[in-house]
């Protein structure tokens, strides 16, 4: 499975994501620089990592969303290439307009880093195929701006059209309807605040993130 990880200045989960992708797909992902203007041919997954692209200055993800590489990512997403944005990657996807809504400052105002319980809301996507419907999993969060907000119509539409992928099973950051991860209408773009790449091997204490990557591999490879 041919994958790529986009590196922005200030990304800091790029290596972790690359390690997880290689562990599960057996192939090293291509590392793309924000200034690149072309994607390698035949990509089956483009992943935007966590971190603090451009220091979170202006708004989290706002500057990275205007990087040259993002024009290519948006085009590829339009053609159906799966795109996964984790944490800051999710923020970049909303700022780039690939996903609706916005990630605001956590309701508690503090940065929060801990394992959280997540409900897998839909398994009808390549990203969540590896899970059981309604399954509760534990994946860590680590963010300051994870409070997902959108207007009521958008939230209703996300829920009705099966675009809510993950929901917090506990209060974490004030997100509307406890939404932790959403899909675009076509189902090929997923943004999520929790970090599945941090729980893929025994050393991490749990491996609930593994099934996300394994599910992708089974569907795509």
């Amino acid at each position: 499975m041919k994958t790529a990880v986009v590196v922005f200045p200030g990304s800091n989960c790029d290596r972790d994501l690359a390690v997880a992708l290689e562990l599960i797909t057996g192939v090293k992902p291509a590392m793309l620089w924000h200034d690149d203007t072309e994607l390698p041919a035949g990509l089956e997954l483009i992943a935007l990592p966590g971190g603090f692209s451009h220091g979170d200055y202006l708004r989290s993800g706002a500057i990275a969303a205007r990087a040259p590489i993002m024009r290519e990512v948006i085009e590829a997403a339009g053609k159906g290439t799966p795109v996964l944005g984790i944490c800051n990657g999710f923020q970049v996807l909303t700022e780039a307009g690939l996903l609706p809504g916005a990630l605001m400052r956590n309701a508690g105002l503090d940065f929060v880093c801990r394992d959280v319980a997540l409900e897998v809301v839909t398994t009808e996507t390549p990203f969540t195929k590896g899970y059981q419907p309604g399954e509760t999993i534990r994946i860590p969060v680590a963010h300051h701006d994870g409070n997902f907000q959108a207007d009521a119509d958008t939230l209703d539409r996300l829920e009705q059209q099966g675009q809510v992928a993950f929901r917090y099973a506990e209060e974490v950051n004030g997100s509307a309807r406890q939404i932790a991860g959403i899909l675009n209408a076509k189902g090929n773009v997923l943004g999520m605040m929790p970090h599945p790449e941090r729980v893929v091997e025994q050393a991490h204490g749990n491996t609930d993130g593994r099934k996300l990557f394994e599910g992708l591999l089974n569907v795509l490879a």
Partner: protein
Amino acid sequence: MTAITPEIVAEHGLQPDEYARILKAIGREPNLLELGIFSVMWSEHCSYKSSRIHLAKLPTKAPWVIQGPGENAGVIDIGDGDAAIFKMESHNHPSFIEPYQGAATGVGGIMRDVFTMGARPVANLNSLSFGAATHPKTKQLLRGVVAGIGGYGNCTGVPTVGGEVRFHPSYNGNILVNAMCVGLARTDKIFYSAAAGIGNPVVYVGSKTGRDGIHGATMASAEFDEDSESKRPTVQVGDPFMEKLLIEACLELMATDAIVAIQDMGAAGLTSSSVEMASKGGVGIKLIMDNVPTREEGMTPYEMMLSESQERMLMILKPGAEPQAEAIFRKWALDFAVIGHVTDTGRLQLEWQGEMVCDLPLDPIGEDAPKYDRPWAPTPPRAPLGEVADSADLMGDLVKLLGSADLASRRWVWEQYDHMVGADTVQRPGGDAALVRVHGTKKALAISTDVTPRYVFADPLEGGKQAIAETWRNITAVGATPLAVTDCMNFAAPTRPEIMGQFVGAIEGMAQACRALDYPVVSGNVSLYNETEGQGILPTPGIGGVGLIADWERSATLALKAAGEEIWLVGASAGHLGQSIWLREIRGLEDGPPPPVDLTAERAAGDWVRALILNGTLTAVHDTADGGLLVALAEMAMAGGIGASVTPKGSHFAAWAYGEDQGRYIITVKPGTTLPPCPVPLSRIGSTGGTALKVEGIGAQDIGALRKAHEIFLPDMMAR
């Protein structure tokens, strides 16, 4: 040219005799810029003038030590061509004045000390001391410091994996923020700071120089008074995004062979980096000040040399390597400027607008800085603690202790730190030591910071021993072999003989423990004058220990694992209540001598426990420290969600439960396990099981109730 008056000399924090020494060294009157350079280099912070002769007593060598004190950080060999590079440093004064930025730049500074040597930072820790939890300033300081540490560390992608937080009224007017960073490098790719190669280019990289932090090192070398708040402009402002770029750019350049020497611009900025690099290399250095990247126009060489703007590095490159290096720094959108060259003059020469504005011999600035053997008075021994009435409510005391400021859960703190980024954190905060995997291997570093200041205050020698021994014990408790320490010596004014006595005593105790445990000091930092209006802090020699375990899967945790297991206590129990938390929290007394540390027994007990962890005999391990036996057992029960039942010994139950005897571990084993002969006292104290912690014949407390008391303290305090 400004004439140097006694007032100007005093404003620069120099004593009249020190100024006379300058006149003699250079044979003329310095100009203002030259005086500024002497003042920062001879500040306590940079010169260690009051502490150097005592620091020399610490053992610093072992076969695995690659670099001891004297470089940006210490380096140890951890096998397979890997090296661990680490140091701890204080940022106390800035953090009291401006907690968020003070703490943030403390983290940034210590990370630069580590990656300047070629290491990728892989773990941050913090040892924090605040005033009384009830003091009106404490809450705001705690909130700011924790947010600053998180704000900086989280952004740079270095996990903050551990540390400690304590509260004591002696820190009301002078908090301590000690930041530790550990990095990993290859042993054949370690970078040092000694300049070499006459004519080689001197290169400035990172952020631009601004007017911030001028005289920071001088401020950090003076006592606080009511005007200290007005020193806010001397606190630097950090930019963690810039630091992240700087880490990546430096490591990228370090993968080539372009660099001859490199050093970060920390305290005293461009002055200390240029002076130290040239002095260490036995060469001279000439800088063209017009080439220094500045944030604003019209900056004078005085401001440029004394600025403590953050996220800057100074490098000596091989000739001709400039274009290659510049391309890397431009890619990361960082400033890159050739600002001078290495000379054979042995002098620091600064040129500005075509004129030589500073021309000083290097030796007197660095190597010949004043060294003081200050008078010191030994700390009088404490009288033994008299009879203390036994606890009236042993289990009620447990709830109070677990919910007290010093023993309550630190979850509120570490959930604000990304402690997992890097995906190599094997043991997260809350255990005896953090365990961080060496990326791509089964090896892991065990890291712990410790000191018990109330012990050091009561008896500097025993307290110094205990600080070293406790990190050693914590690292041992996860199954790792302790290898070396970094120290961060926080004391009040060295001009007071009783304070110097504390310093001398603590160093002596630390040295004894380091020798007995084969656990040398490889780096460190001294912070003196931690007092406000004559009120000194408790002496706080913070210790950061680093150990190694060959296979993280063999490591132990403190959580009870299953019901029906045997609980054993390793080590001798005398029921020592002097300076205990129980005595302070329940009886309201800070009295008596601290518990003595028997270093022979310490080592024997630790080596025995570690061997049993590694061969898989033990199911859980926890050292008993602050709070004593019952507190340690409660922590194991809460972590595992499994209860325990123990039988008390002796006639004084509080002494049995809450005495703080040293060198002890609680271990659990599967029922019927045969333990090998133990070199220290070993006794079966009970069994695991149930949902409560039960003391036979006395009472029980449900784990849920213990956990509630333990977890609620900090959130409650911060919400008030």
